[in-house]
């Protein structure tokens, strides 16, 4: 177990290292941050000063070594744009993205699991066919398009929900409202206004995952129902509901937990589109803005955090998986 963990950590380190190199070279290939950040009417002297100020006058490998040296001391560099530590900027935006991602996952399980269970238990009912057709639609609709549709219907036409933004937030320590927005982590699910703002983006982000959970659950139910132990349990005379909710449910939980767990990472990483449609001030929006102005320190720091997040999530999923299904031994499972 410990050996396994250590090995995974070392591998993770290499992944992070490789990635930072790729990002450095990649951004170098895309363009020159100074060209993008500088005021158009800056003269040549000012341009040279800016290149120096951002440390971009050094050769690329030297820039990378400087970065690496600082990173080892926990300093991932300062944003070119905001002149603040990149890590701080990202951590400031993290709660917004996290609550959106968790909200989406919560919705996907809340809606997807019962629907999938129904579709799996009664595969031939027209309702099930409808659910399955709906789930395919959920896969196929482009996220940005759905987002705009939601805004048009619920905010503009019906006026039920606010169109964009994050609304009122509240820090865990209890300072209510925006007043304390400079101190402490801010959460909007703690206020009614915040929840109203969260509803649409969370649903938008969840749409894909709802379909996923429906299909996973249905497939799981259908497979499990054919297993010998289920037949045995039924033959033993256990009630249908007991078989469904104890025997079957426990087994389909494994793939659902795995995938939903893996999905958390991708939800966080890919909330970019939803965040920009709904002007949700999270990490995804930060990264897109940063790419647009080639704010390298922020991009590198963001990707490092995302990679670490992915590795951690994968690890947790693997561990959970091994606990839920004793037949799986960690050593033989590579991913």
């Amino acid at each position, binding site marked *: 177990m410990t050996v396994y963990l250590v090995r995974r950590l070392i591998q993770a380190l290499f992944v992070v290292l490789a990635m930072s190199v790729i990002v450095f070279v990649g951004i170098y*290939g895309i363009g020159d941050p100074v060209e993008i950040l500088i005021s158009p009417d800056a003269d040549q002297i000012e341009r040279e000063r800016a290149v120096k100020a951002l440390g971009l006058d050094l050769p690329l490998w030297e820039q990378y070594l400087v970065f690496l040296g600082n990173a080892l001391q926990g300093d991932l560099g300062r944003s070119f744009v905001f002149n603040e530590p990149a890590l701080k900027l990202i951590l400031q935006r993290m709660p917004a993205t996290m609550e959106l991602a968790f909200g989406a996952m919560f919705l996907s399980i809340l809606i997807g699991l019962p629907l999938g269970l129904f579709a799996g238990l009664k595969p031939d009912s027209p309702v099930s066919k409808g659910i399955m057709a709906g789930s395919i639609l959920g896969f*196929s609709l482009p996220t940005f398009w759905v987002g705009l549709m939601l805004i048009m219907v619920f905010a503009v036409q019906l006026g039920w929900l606010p169109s964009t933004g994050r609304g009122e937030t509240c820090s865990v320590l209890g300072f209510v409202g925006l007043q304390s927005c400079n101190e402490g982590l801010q959460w909007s699910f703690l206020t009614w206004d915040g929840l109203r703002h969260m509803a649409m983006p969370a649903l938008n982000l969840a749409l894909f995952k709802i379909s996923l959970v429906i299909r996973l659950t249905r497939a799981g139910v259908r*497979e499990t129902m054919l297993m010998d132990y289920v037949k045995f349990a039924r033959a033993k005379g256990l009630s249908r509901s007991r078989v469904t909710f104890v025997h079957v449910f426990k087994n389909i939980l494994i793939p659902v937990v795995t995938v939903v767990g893996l999905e958390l990472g991708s939800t966080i990483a890919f909330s970019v589109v939803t965040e920009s449609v709904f002007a949700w001030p999270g990490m995804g929006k930060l990264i897109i803005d940063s790419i647009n102005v080639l704010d390298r320190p922020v991009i590198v720091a963001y990707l490092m955090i995302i990679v670490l997040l992915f590795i951690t999530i994968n690890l947790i999923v693997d561990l959970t998986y091994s606990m839920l299904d004793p037949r799986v031994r960690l050593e033989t499972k590579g991913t």
Partner: protein
Amino acid sequence: MSDVALKGAPASAPVPAKVETPFRRFVSEFCESKVAVGGAIVFGVIALVAIFAPWIAPQNPYDLAQLDIMDGRMEPGTVGGAGFTYWLGTDDQGRDMMSGIMYGLRISLMVGAGSALIACVVGASLGLLAAYAGKRTDTVIMRLVDLQLSFPSILVALMILAFLGKGIMNVVIALVIVEWAYYARTVRGTALVERRREYIEAAQCLALPTHRILFRHLLPNCLPPLIVVATMQVARAIALEATLSFLGLGVPITEPSLGLLIANGYEYMLSGKYWISFYPGIALLVTIVSINLMGDQLRDVLNPRLKK
């Protein structure tokens, strides 16, 4: 956004006895689902339209000389300056939407199928290699898969396309780089199970060459999940291309794919000019749904655990 095919990997660990299915039986089983057959027919029609677009479209939407901005944003059914009717309206450049959709389908399908095919070949080979060679090779390849999957695909595409410039080929390359890992992971998962089976052991005892064992024995038995993944990935590639084009990174603006057509119309949606975004959106939706319907049935047919 994420992959449909993930399901294959963890769930395919314990496999009961497996029945060989000949092609005909496969077809008849596939036809059991009316919805899937419908999907296949719709997809066939779409494919035909895409292939014959240059002959049946009223306008070549990629020839700037045939467009006139004075015909821009015309409502469906308007007769344009060139004398023919724009049944589905025009976009901001005066491009006939119907022609645009036909040509767009062509690009979307080409990009989707092309990238899925290449990614499948690359990914499956690496996955097989990982499963068969094991040890260090396996670790290296699977770490690469991890690296790949931990990169937001939008960012990978941005970088690749920034290096290579825009263009259909470059989009295909970007999609291959984004997608090969899913195939590798799926094939490796299946192959790991298959590898321990008697027929492989038998082949090894006969001292058959490695490539023969890999491609003649192991690969055919990994095909069912691979086909399912590939179908889903075609749909995913089409959607991803649309997203890339939405972000302004995909195909060149003068040769719009469905995704770019939607993106172009996106801005006009709030102002009531729905057709620029709506019809390509429907075409995209129908295409992806029909592929997914087929893939769905394929999964049921090809999954041995659902057989009695």
